[in-house]
């Protein structure tokens, strides 16, 4: 297997995932951030949107100057139809700054043969993308339904020479499997003394004393919660009309010193407030871990 070391991406501690079809999640120019994540699945399920974005490219469509990462974490039926060639065409049209390799599905309650097949498919696609001298950095996905698969997957991704690895964490956290998953991944990274960055995708809270220094988190909860008028405050989530926060004033670019329940009527402003509050959690966790 060829090993080509990729250039590193400079990622912040929290990367906001946005909803491309909902401009309420487009927080710029009020808030300046260096990177965002756009979900390819969203573009693939809306033909009109796909046509529009492909014509302009992501940067022009969104009017965003920073780093745009394309996420391939999407529903299984869309993954089955996504090929490396198809992804290359999409990358050419959409012009992101980095892209995840096509995702796969590895379920613990499936026969192991199925998860191994999926894993091999994903790793072969990763190799294929890496071999083809892409203009943009490729982000590897760590998957696996067992310890053996997770270790195997991490080792293979390191051999390919990827410098950034991501893993979708939401479902693992819900199934209380995240801790063991992380320890399996970081064991390999430590053993191989790998110089890679990790992205924990889909988690809206930081993990205390995370065993890997170079870690970023990515999620969209700040925007999803704003749709339901939830207001983030001091690391907690409240309905904006809750007595603990309703008369709360905040000087952030979203709230502009308005009361919490007043901001709730403006989903974009509330999303900006929630984003800044959420980022604060990740920043303070980073400082605490130092």
């Amino acid at each position: 297997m060829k090993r080509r070391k990729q250039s590193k991406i400079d990622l912040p501690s929290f990367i906001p995932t946005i909803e491309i079809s909902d401009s309420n999640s487009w927080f710029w120019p009020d808030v300046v951030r260096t990177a965002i994540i756009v979900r390819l699945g969203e573009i693939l399920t809306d033909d009109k949107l796909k046509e529009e974005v492909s014509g302009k490219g992501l940067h022009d469509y969104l009017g965003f100057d920073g780093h745009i990462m394309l996420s391939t974490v999407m529903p299984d039926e869309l993954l089955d139809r996504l090929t490396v060639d198809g992804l290359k065409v999409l990358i050419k049209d959409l012009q992101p700054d980095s892209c995840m390799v096509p995702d796969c599905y590895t379920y613990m309650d499936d026969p192991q043969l199925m998860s191994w097949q999926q894993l091999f498919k994903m790793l072969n696609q990763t190799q294929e993308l890496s071999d083809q001298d892409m203009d943009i950095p490729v982000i590897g996905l760590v998957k696996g339904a067992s310890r053996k698969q997770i270790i195997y997957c991490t080792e293979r991704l390191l051999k390919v020479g990827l410098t950034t690895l991501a893993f979708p964490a939401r479902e693992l956290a819900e199934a209380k499997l995240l801790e063991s998953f992380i320890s399996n991944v970081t064991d390999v990274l430590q053993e191989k003394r790998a110089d890679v960055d990790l992205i924990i995708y889909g988690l809206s809270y930081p993990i205390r004393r995370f065993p890997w220094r170079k870690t970023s988190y990515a999620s969209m909860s700040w925007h999803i919660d704003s749709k339901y008028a939830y207001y983030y405050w001091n690391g907690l989530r409240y309905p904006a009309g809750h007595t603990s926060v309703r008369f709360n004033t905040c000087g952030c670019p979203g709230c502009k010193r308005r009361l919490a329940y007043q901001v709730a009527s403006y989903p974009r402003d509330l999303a900006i407030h929630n984003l800044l509050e959420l980022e604060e959690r990740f920043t303070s966790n980073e400082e605490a871990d130092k």
Partner: protein
Amino acid sequence: MGSGDRQQQIEKRFNQGNSHAEHLTPGHGCGKPEGLPIILGNYRIVSAGQGYLVLHNEQELGKYRELLQADENRALFKLEKGMLLEVTPTGTREIFTDEKARVHGIIASDGSLYHNLEQRIYEIKVACKSGELVDMFREDFKKVYDRELHFSIERGKYPKARISYKDAFNDLVAYGARKGEGMWRVPREHLDREGAREWLKMFMAGDGSIGCRRGKARVRFFSKNQEGLEQIRMLLDEEFGIASKLKMRDRTDKMNHSSLEYIVEVSSDEDKVRYITEIGSYKQSHQENIRRALGG
């Protein structure tokens, strides 16, 4: 996507926990409506084999076997464990059936959930003075989880119904009927207007009071769970336009055992009348007070 558990993934995405819709049998709902396809904003409901297919922007959202209600505002599909899928022009969400809302409400007020991992106990229990509420809980639980509860009346104690059933336990915990005293939350996102009414009516029967003095009603909810009562206050306000206030009461006893209790009290006379006419309570003594307050 696709980490963890496939069954969980399917349950979450398609709400039914069954990916093989072609094997589904026809339901007992309203039968196939004549107005198919149903258009609700970007959602389209079409007939598919023995069930129904819900499409969002022409992408398949899921297949469902029973369509319980369909009009120009919303469609309701029957899901598992007392849940319904509500499709409206603005989106979809899972909501409680009336039975599940009552089960959740009574557990929050007069019920408890107890878990012992070593002994594999997942106990759901309701004990209350009013036998009719326990009977109602047993009937609703049977409809939601298809299990019979054990019923007993011990001397000097309230009638109680209990069961150790892991699936139902985990389901109730997932919807906020937490373990421990005063640890519940209102499952606001899963309650439509009907569900909210049933939940409040049942909670009122357990931990509320509707009094009548000089022909005037007094409507209050009690709990040690300040957060939960705050959610009740908001539910009353948002769903029924009933204004109420959250108060605190110190119930420290003579032995100096400190205990704080919170109360949500419906404020104005107009709102009290609205509460007792639109919501009410399942407790017989409350219903008598309501009749007296309304001059019946």
